[in-house]
């Protein structure tokens, strides 16, 4: 709770800091504040105090995800030091908005009341609408922001309608009550309840970019500034999934809604992978890969058991780590290529920056789910869960492999070693620039990659109750990621 407040205040503090010419203090203060919040969070470990008349509950599940969210934000802030170094205006606002959005995310991980779900989603989203338009001089950025806003609000309407209908049938916003009501036979047959669940899930599906509510995703990813894109594809995605899962955990969804979920899952997997095949813009590619991963994560929802949350956590964490790393690489390569975002800018990376190329390769392998990377373990666990749930999740299979395959191939090329092409993309001075940058940041990515590998090769227990949800290696991997930046 105090963490929540601290982060909110931190946002305001950063805004004030922004009034003066204190840009170089922004990130350190933000990071320190976040770490402080994290400490507070950890101090309340296992206390499980219900807050706001029981509308928020910081249980183990919430703690684990909160920690992940905060750490990811810290990483992005670190990333931001360099990223915002050249930006003249509004830097403080960007940091502050991210913090506000993070608050929404923290609420999503810990809500026990549908009202908080709604508020969380809105607090998460509204800053993002602004952040997405962060590239002031870019027309595409503004356009993306508007689209995002429009579709986001639209989806919120559905979410609200759903919540209202659920309330209509249960007379309560309390998650536990709702979950109990859904389980009863009366709840199962109730049309209001059915429609309510339906619309609620539609609303949340939008946030996680499940097909057919994914349309905003590629445009916004492409239009938003890279840091924001990274934020959306990691923190926001993690938070949205955490909330989604919290919503339907222990809920015996009526068969009809379950069917819908299956259809959505299949569509998402299928579309994400197939469209990714033809993408040449790196961010759009990441968008579709993100959609594909959404599909994958949705498989988890098809058969919820007591181990599900652990798998979800593991998957999201590993996915996020790899994604942040790749966005860092993108920024580096993009600078060398003078703003081009086509995936061809990665060609010749090995020539100019072998370590970075190797790290990139590891990150991609992890996203693709190749063994000895965390991505593989994550996928494995999803499979295992799906099969164990007697789901014969074969539809899941078809798509997911493609996701891996194509992603690797499409990106695998980046690490290109072919000498002839080496100089064309990152040539001359650009190459030197890349070198210089790599000295500082490349090790960061490498660290991330190492973390990914480490997580992959020593998967560790995570079964049991949500309280011991924090995967030790995941955690250590996150720390590893931090290390090179901390100096």
């Amino acid at each position: 709770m105090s963490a929540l407040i601290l982060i909110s205040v931190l946002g305001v503090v950063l805004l004030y800091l922004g009034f003066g010419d204190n840009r170089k203090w922004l990130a350190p203060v933000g990071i320190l504040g976040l770490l402080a919040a994290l400490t507070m969070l950890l101090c309340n470990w296992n206390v499980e105090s219900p807050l706001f008349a029981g509308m928020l509950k910081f249980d183990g599940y919430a703690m684990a995800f909160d920690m992940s969210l905060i750490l990811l934000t810290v990483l992005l802030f670190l990333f931001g030091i360099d990223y915002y170094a050249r930006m003249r205006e509004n830097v403080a606002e960007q940091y502050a908005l991210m913090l506000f959005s993070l608050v929404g995310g923290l609420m999503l991980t810990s809500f026990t009341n549908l009202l908080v779900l709604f508020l969380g989603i809105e607090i998460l989203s509204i800053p993002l609408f602004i952040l997405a338009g962060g590239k002031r001089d870019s027309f595409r950025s503004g356009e993306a922001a508007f689209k995002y806003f429009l579709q986001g609000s639209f989806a919120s309407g559905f979410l609200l309608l759903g919540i209202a209908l659920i309330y209509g049938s249960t007379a309560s916003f309390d998650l536990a009550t709702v979950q109990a009501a859904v389980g009863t036979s009366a709840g199962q047959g109730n049309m209001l309840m059915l429609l309510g669940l339906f619309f609620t899930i539609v609303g949340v599906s939008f946030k996680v970019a499940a097909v057919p509510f994914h349309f905003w995703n590629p445009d916004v990813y492409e239009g938003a500034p890279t840091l924001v894109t990274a934020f959306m594809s990691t923190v926001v995605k993690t938070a949205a999934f955490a909330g989604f899962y919290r919503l339907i955990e222990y809920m015996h969804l009526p068969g009809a809604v379950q069917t819908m979920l299956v259809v959505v899952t299949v569509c998402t997997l299928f579309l994400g992978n197939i469209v990714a095949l033809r993408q040449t813009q790196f961010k759009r590619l990441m968008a579709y890969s993100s959609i594909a991963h959404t599909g994958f994560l949705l498989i988890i929802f098809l058969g919820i058991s007591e181990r599900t949350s652990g798998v979800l956590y593991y998957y999201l964490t590993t996915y996020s780590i790899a994604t942040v790393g790749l966005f860092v690489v993108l920024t580096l390569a993009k600078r060398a290529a003078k703003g081009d975002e086509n995936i061809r800018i990665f060609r010749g990376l090995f020539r100019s920056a072998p370590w970075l190329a190797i790290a990139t390769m590891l990150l991609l392998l992890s996203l693709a789910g190749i063994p000895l990377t965390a991505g593989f373990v994550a996928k494995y666990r999803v499979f295992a869960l799906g099969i164990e749930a007697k789901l014969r999740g074969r539809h899941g299979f078809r798509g997911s492999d493609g996701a891996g395959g194509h992603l690797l191939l499409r990106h695998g090329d980046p690490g290109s070693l072919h000498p002839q092409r080496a100089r064309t993309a990152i040539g001359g001075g650009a190459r030197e620039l890349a070198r210089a940058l790599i000295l500082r940041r490349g090790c960061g990515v490498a660290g991330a990659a190492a973390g990914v590998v480490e997580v992959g090769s020593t998967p560790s227990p995570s079964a049991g109750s949500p309280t011991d949800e924090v995967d030790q290696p995941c955690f250590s991997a996150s720390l590893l990621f931090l290390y090179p930046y901390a100096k």
Partner: protein
Amino acid sequence: MVMTDLLAVLVPALPLAGAVLLSALRRKFSATVAGSIATALIAISFVATVILFSGFDTAAGGRTVRVLDWLSITGMDIPLALRIDALSLTMMLIVTGVGALIHLYSIGYMHDDERAPTFFAQLNLFSFAMLMLVMGSNFLVTFIGWEGVGLCSYLLIGFWYTKPDYNYAARKAFVMNRIGDVGMVLAMALLFHFLGTLEYTAVMENAHSIPAWGLLAITLLLFFGATGKSAQIPLFTWLPDAMAGPTPVSALIHAATMVTAGVFLVVRSSVLFDLVPYTRDVILWTGTATALLAATIGLFQNDIKKVLAYSTVSQLGYMFAALGMGAYSAAMFHVTTHAFFKALLFLAAGSVIHALGGEQDIRKMGGLKGSIKITFVTFFIGTIAISGLPLMSGFFSKDLILAHAFQHSPVAFGLLVFGAVLTTFYMFRLLFLVFYGTYRGKAHAHESPLTMTVPLMVLAVLSVVGGALNLPHLFGGHEPMKHFLESAAAAIRSEEIELSASTEWILMGITAVLVFTTIAFAYGRFVKRTTLEGDEADMPLLKRLIAQRWRVDELYAALFEKPYGWLSEHFHSIGELRIMVPLQNGVGEAALRVGNVVRKLQTGNASFHLLAMVAGIIIFLVITLLSN
């Protein structure tokens, strides 16, 4: 006993060592040195064989020398082992004896060739393989030799590898042999399937426990294998082409030894064949047909070696006819005498070719009896031996077969006698056209060196007296070879000629009269007025067909070679490029195409996106409500 074993191992080991040594050091040796080493080694093998032979006790049956474990896993024990018994000793004597002579001959024949050491290495390797073939104590060891001789034959036929025709002939020989080998492998697999062993002794002991269909299949498959090696219908066309190799090769491999492997194999498994009369009939008629077919083709050939080649095919037909009649020892007897006189004929032909500087066309020879006397005399002896002039070796062996035929089937007898007449005719045509009349060529003929003529003389003597090896009762002998072989193949015991002496005399008389008449006819046709074959286009239809070797090669080309090439090309162009690859690419392309279509939905148009979302919601709503 240890001494015997060592000798037995030594017999094939020496030529193998020679092969390895000569090929490794082929650059260091001159032709003569290499030839001498090779000859010496095979000669020592011959001596060892003679020692083994002299010490051999027919009453003891035979002896197996286990050299090495070879294939031994659970349920299978096939050793590398050699068997010394009457049959293998007979073959060993032929292989090493005739082989040594031919090696010796080759020293003279090949002394100009710069690759002579390689030649001798391969010749030695061949001897090794042939010895393995005849000495193997089980089918699989025999099969080592069986394939080995095929390989060596391939190498030696294509010895002068820069000539594409020769390579073609070599490849044809190998492929045809391999087709036959399929039969052999299948037969072995079947035998092993039924008996769990491939040892000859064990197989023969338990042969009766194989079901009838199995026996039929095994014997037919073995025979099919034999047709490949021994150039019988349908796999005979390679042998005449195989004359592309150096002449000593033709003598050793394609006349005296390798081609008799089929005969040897059938005799080795005579117990099996005795149990299946049907297969024996097949063998009889195949042999007879081959004998006649090849003999007819021999009538109009103009290449001195081709005539001899077809004569070889024809004589092999006789041997198989004998096998088909169950006259195993008669077949072996003919193998032996044939080895003498056909090796002699080939070597003499080689001597002629050598004398004329490589000329092989008999239309460009003639009148050579004066210039190369030794060659002429020996060739003459060979000719009368193969024609079966009384008291020559060929006379005894062929008459034995004819007598069996008469007893077995008069039709076969008639056909075989007709074949004998044809043989006499084409052999004397050859003799007359080469040595009589006037010389029609341009080269200066000269007699061959001693290394070449000595083997000729030795073989000539053997061709004359070879009949004594199995002198029939009629001539006061008591068929020593038959009795000797009985110890190795029990089936031989039952083969007795039950004709009265007078019948036998009459049969001999008939044959002799026919032979002499034919010689006279040939004398009139080729010595009185030299009749040469003209252009094929001017010949009457039947004669043209025969001169063109019954167009069997063309038939095979149309039936097998061309369709195979067609199949290969179309499997690739259609099966692979049109079906398999597109099928696999199709899946990927379809995915890409769908991806493209779906990507186009992502137009960037916000209203459309909202509309699509609403449409999605409505569809899902319908799904949800319907499935509720």
